[in-house]
C-alpha cells in the first residue's frame, strides 16, 4: 500500500482515492475550471497528509482511554429492548465488559435474521420463525397425566398450536423415540399414549418418564428460546434470543449474507476471525451509541485488531493479551506478579526492555513519541564540521 520515496512515505494513490471519494462525487457539480479542480484535489491531498498520525504516537493508550473514559458515564444495569418489548439484550457497561473479557457466550445471545426476497412475506416469515424457535413437548401440550391402570403416560396436545406450528403428531412420536429408548407411542386423536417396553413398570419410572417427555425437543433449533417477527421498512426481520449460526443458516429462505449474531466466538468458529473482528467493532459501536457516547471507529478497530491478531479471540486481561506479553516485567506489573517472575526464572528468560512500563521501572526514557527521537542542536562547531564535510 505504501511506497517509500527518499525516506518520505507516500500513500498509494488508491488509498487517497478512497478517502477522496467525496471529491470524485462532487467535482462535476462544481462550476470551476480544470485547473482549479486540480488545485482542489491537491489541497485535499495535502490536507489528508496533514492529518496523518505522527511517528511514535501512542495510539494504543489513546484508543484505550477513548473507550474507557466514556464508559465511566454509561449506565451500569441497562437493558435494551430489541423488537418492541419482547427481548431484553444486555447493554451498557456489562455488555462492553463481556466483549473485552471474551466470554465464550454472551449472557443474552441474540440474532437478527433477514429473509430472502421470495420469503419476505408475513406468513412465510412467521413460518420460518416457528421453525427456528426451540419447541419442546411441554410447549405444545395441554396436559400430561399418568394412567396408572395401564401404566402409561398420556400427553394431551394443544391442537391449535400444533396446527399453527404444523407439527404432525407422528413426528412427535418419532422425536420422542429418538430421545428416549424402549418406548412405544400411539396416537389417539389429540392424545399420545406412551408405553414403556419394560417388564416391571413402577410409578416412579412413569414419573421420571413424564418429566423426560416434557423436555423432548420437537421442532426448531436448540438454544433459541424466542423468535419474533418485526417489520422494519420493507423487510420482515426475525429477532431471536439465543444464537446458533450454523443451524439457522441451513434453514431455507434465510438471507445468510445479512444474518447477524452477537456471539463473537460463534462467529469466529462459523464465519471466521475477520467476521469476528467486524462484530467486535460493530457491537461496541452500537453499545456505546445507545449510551449516547461518541467514539471514533479507529479506536475500536485497533482494539478489535489486537484482540483478533493472533487468529483467535484474546481477552483484554490477565488470561488474554496482558498475560501473553513478551516482557516479564510488564506481565509482573499487571497481575500475578509472583507467578510471572517464577516462570521467567525457571525458563531463564531475558527482558529486552522494549515496552513502556519496563522503561518506566528502570528509569529510562520510554521509546514512545518524543522518546524515540533526540534533539540535535546546530552549534557553531557543528556547523563548521558540516562545512568541512561539504568541502
Amino acid at each position, binding site marked *: 500500500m505504501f511506497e517509500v520515496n527518499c525516506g518520505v512515505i507516500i500513500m498509494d494513490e488508491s488509498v487517497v482515492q478512497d478517502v477522496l471519494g467525496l471529491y470524485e462525487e462532487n467535482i462535476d457539480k462544481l462550476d470551476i475550471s480544470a485547473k482549479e479542480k486540480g488545485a482542489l484535489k491537491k489541497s485535499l491531498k495535502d490536507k489528508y497528509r496533514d492529518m496523518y498520525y505522527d511517528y511514535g504516537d*501512542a495510539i494504543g493508550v489513546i484508543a*484505550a482511554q477513548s473507550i474507557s473514559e466514556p464508559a465511566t458515564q454509561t449506565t451500569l444495569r441497562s437493558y435494551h429492548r430489541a423488537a418492541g418489548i419482547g427481548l431484553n439484550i444486555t447493554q451498557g457497561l456489562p455488555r462492553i465488559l463481556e466483549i473485552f473479557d471474551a466470554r465464550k457466550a454472551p449472557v443474552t445471545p441474540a440474532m437478527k435474521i433477514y429473509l430472502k426476497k421470495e420469503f419476505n412475506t408475513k406468513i412465510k416469515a412467521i413460518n420460518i420463525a416457528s421453525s427456528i424457535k426451540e419447541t419442546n413437548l411441554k410447549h405444545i401440550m395441554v396436559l400430561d397425566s399418568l394412567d396408572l391402570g395401564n401404566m402409561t403416560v398420556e400427553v394431551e396436545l394443544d391442537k391449535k398450536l400444533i396446527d399453527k406450528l404444523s407439527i404432525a403428531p407422528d413426528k412427535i412420536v418419532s422425536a420422542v423415540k429418538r430421545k428416549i429408548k424402549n418406548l412405544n407411542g400411539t396416537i389417539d386423536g389429540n392424545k399420545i399414549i406412551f408405553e414403556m417396553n419394560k417388564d416391571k413398570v413402577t410409578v416412579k419410572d412413569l414419573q421420571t418418564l413424564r418429566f423426560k417427555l416434557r423436555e423432548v425437543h420437537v421442532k426448531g433449533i436448540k438454544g433459541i428460546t424466542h423468535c419474533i417477527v418485526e417489520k422494519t421498512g420493507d423487510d420482515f426481520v426475525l429477532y431471536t434470543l439465543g444464537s446458533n449460526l450454523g443451524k439457522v443458516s441451513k434453514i431455507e429462505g434465510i438471507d445468510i449474507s445479512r444474518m447477524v449474531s452477537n456471539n463473537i466466538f460463534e462467529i469466529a468458529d462459523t464465519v471466521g476471525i475477520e467476521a469476528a473482528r467486524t462484530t467486535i467493532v460493530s457491537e461496541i459501536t452500537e453499545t456505546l451509541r445507545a449510551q449516547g457516547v461518541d467514539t471514533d471507529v479507529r479506536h475500536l478497530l485497533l482494539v478489535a485488531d489486537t484482540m483478533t491478531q493472533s487468529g483467535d479471540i484474546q481477552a483484554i486481561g490477565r488470561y488474554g493479551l496482558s498475560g501473553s506479553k513478551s516482557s516479564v516485567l510488564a506481565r509482573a506489573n499487571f497481575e500475578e506478579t509472583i507467578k510471572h517472575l517464577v516462570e521467567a526464572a*525457571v525458563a531463564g528468560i531475558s527482558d529486552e526492555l522494549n515496552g513502556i512500563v519496563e522503561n518506566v521501572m528502570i528509569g529510562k526514557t520510554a521509546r514512545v513519541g518524543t522518546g524515540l527521537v533526540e534533539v540535535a542542536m546546530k552549534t557553531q562547531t557543528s556547523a563548521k564540521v558540516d562545512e568541512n564535510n561539504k568541502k
Partner: protein
Amino acid sequence: MVMIDKIKFKLISPKMIQKMSAILITTSEVYDADAYPVEGGVMDTRMGVIDPGIRCKTCGGRSGECQGHFGHIDLAKPVYNILYLKPIKTMLTYTCGSCGGLLVDKDKIKDDKTLNKLTVPKTCPVCNEPVEKIKFERPMSFKRGNHVITAEESREQFEKISDEDLKHLNFNGGRPEWMILTILPVPSITTRPSITLTSGERSEDDLTHKLVDIVRINQRLLNNLEIGAPEFILDDLWELLQYHIATYFNNEMTGVPPARHRSGRQLKTLSQRLKSKDGRFRNNLTGKRVNFSARTVISPDPMIGVNDVGIPEKIASELTIPIRGTKDNIDELKACILRGPDAKDGANYVIRPDGLKKKIIDMNKEYIMNEFSEGYILEKHISDGDIVLFNRQPSLHKMSLMAHRVKVLPHKTFRLNLTVCTPYNADFDGDEMNLHVPQTAEARAEAEQLMLVEKNIRSPRFGGPIIGGVQDFISGGYLITREGTVISKELAAQLLFKVGVVVDLKKEIYTGKELMSFILPKGLDVEYQANICKKCGTCKKEKCTHDAYVKVADGEMISGVIDQNAISPFKGRILDKIDLEFGHSEAVVFLERITRLATEYLMYRGFTISVSEEDVPQSVKDDINGFVDEHFVKVYALIDEFNKGKIEVQPGLTPEETLEGLILSELFEIVNKSQNLIAKEAKDNDAQIMAKTGARGSIQNLTFMAGIIGPETVQGHRIFRGYKDRTLPHYKRGDLSAEAHGFVRSCYKQGLSPTEFFFEAMKGREGIMDSSLKTRISGYMQRRLVNALQDILVARDHSARDSSGRIVQFVAGEDGIDPSKSDGGKLINV
C-alpha cells in the same frame, strides 16, 4: 551513564549465595543486654547500617552510603523453595527417579503445554527402572507412589539430570537442584530496617521476625542432628523449618496457616512485598513520587486565559526552574537573586559549576549575586509565562494532564479558566489539582508544543472540541445575541473594552449580533441549527421564526443565536470551525473573547432564578391533573383485564411482565405529555433559558420542579419491594395501582407526600449505589485496556505495531488519520 540493556531472570545458585554473603548467621539472638546487635545474629552490622553515625563493618560506609550486604544461613537439611513447587513437580514427573534421565520423547516437547499432555512411560527408557506416578500433596510435599519424597531425595534426583535434558524441558534458568534450598540468603538490614518508636522501643521488620524463626529452628535441628536425636523429632523439626521458610517466601499460601505477628496481624513477607497495588511493582517501580510539584484547591477565574493557570504566590516561591547563567540572561538572573527567596519572581538556590549548592537567604543574597557568573545554575522561582503541567485525578484520558502558562496571583488556590473544566472533569466544590514543573528545556519545549491546553482542544476520542464554553457562557451568549437585545454605544464600548477588542464604534445603537460579529474572525462561514431549534418539519433557514438558524458569513453574524451548539464542548460548531480553519491559537482567542463578553453582559443584565420561576399557570396544572386521571383510568382498565386473565400476553413474557410493561409506559406517557406542555407553556424566564440553550438543566428538570415527577423505578421496574404483597402499610395487599408502586403525583415545588418521598428515596439510593459500583468496574476495565494496548505505537511506515515489532494494523486506524487532527473523524465535513 550506565544504562540497563536487558534483565535476565535466573535461579540463584548456592555458590552465588555463598559468594555474595558477608556473614554466616548462626544465632537466633538479635540484641544483647546492651541493646547492641549480636554478632552472627540477623541484625549483625556487617549486613549494613541504618542508624546514622555508625559505620558498616563490611564496607565502612555510613548510613545512606552503604547499600547493605547479604548474609546467609546454612540450612541443616534441604527444604523446598515453595515458589518453585510447580517446576519441581514437572522435574520430578518427567525425569527418572533413579537415573535422572528424560522420561518422555524430547522431540515431542515444544512448550509447557505440549509437555503436560505427554504420557509418562511405565519404565524409564534409559535405565529401565519402573517409574511411579508423582503426586503433589497439599500444601508442600510430593509422593512417589506411597513414598513421601524428601527435599534431599528430590535434590539427589535433580543433580543427575543432564544439562541437555534440561534444555529440552525448557529449563534454562540454572540447575533444578537450586530450587531446593540448602543455603538461605539473608537480605541486608537496609532491606528490612527496624524502626525506633518514640518510646525508645525497637520495632523489627516482618522479615526480621521471620528470619529469627528460621534461624532458631535451623539451630535446633542442627543440634538434634549432632546429638543423633530420634527420627520423628528430626522430621518434626524439619517440617517446622519448611513451614517457616515457606511463609518467609509467601505468607498467603492456600492450606498453610499464615505466620502472625505477636499482635495477631499477618506478617508481610517476600511475596507480599512485591504483589498487588501496594507492592513494590505497582507502587514503587511503576508509580514514582516526584519533586517540583504542588497541590491545592482549585477555584474558577473567568478572566484568566484559557492557556493560563493562576498559582498562589506562596507556591510560586517554592517551585523552581534551574536556569544556567549565560551572557544573555545574567542580568535577569542577578535581579532574581536580588529579589530573594520570599519575593515574587525571586530565586531559592544557586549551584556553582563545581556542584556546590547554596541556599539564597535575605542575608546573603547580595553576596551570592556578586558571585553569580556564567556557568552557574540558578534555581529561579516560576514566574508568569513559564510552562507547568496541571493535572486532576482520576486521570482518565490524556486531557487530564495539560500544560498551562503560569500566572502568579495572590491568595491560596489554583485559578483556572472555566473552559478547561470539561477535559479535567473539574468543579469547584473542593476539588484539588496537582501541578508539576518540568525541569529541563527539552521537557518544557515538549510540554509547550504537545500538551498546552490549546493543542488539546480537539479530543482524539471523537475529533471535536472538548474545551469550550459552559453554563453562564452559553446563557450569556444567548441573551446577547437573541432577537431584541439592544446595546447602547456606551455599553458596547464598555463590553468590548472588557473583551479586549478595539473597534471604532460608529453607530449609536448596536444589536447583540453586531457585537458578536466584532468577535468572530473575518472569513468565517458557518451555518447550522442552534440548540434552541424547535425541530419544525421544514427548516426556513435564516428566516426561522425562533431565530434558531445560525448563519455566519465572512465573520458577520447574520441570523441565529449563540448557544450550546456554538461554543460548548462536544457540540460547539463555531468553535470547531474556527479551530479547524484558523488554528488552535485563534480558537483560544475566540473562546476568551466570547466567554468574557458573555460574562460581562450577564453581569450587566443580571441572571438568576427564583422559586417563582417554577410557577406554572393554573391551566397547566389542571391539564397535568387531566393527564394523570386519563392514564390512571387506562391503568385501572389494564389491571382489570389482567385480573380477569384477559390480557394479551406479549411474546416471551409472562402476563405479569406484560402488565408491568404496559402500565409503566402509560405512566411515563403522563410525564412526557406534561413535559411537552411545560416546554410550550413556560414563561421565557432565566430557568427556561438555561434549559433551552443547553447551559444547564433540562426541560425534564423543570417538569420535575413545576409539573410532575411521575413513576419511580428501581432497576427499570416499578417498586415492588417492601412488605408481603405490598410496598407500604398504607396500601392494600395486592394493590397494583400506580400510587401503591411508586407513582409520584406531586412536583418538587409543591412537595412530596411521605409515601412519595419514601419511593423517591429508594430510587435515589439506587442511583448512588450504581455510580459507586460503576467507577470500580470501569476503573478496572480501563486498567486492563490500557495495559493490553499500551505498547502499540505508530511505526515509521504508518503501521501500528507493538513493542516487539509485531504489526497490529498495516495502516494505523485503517486510513492513517489521527482523529484529533480530523473534523469529527472525517477529512472534510460537508
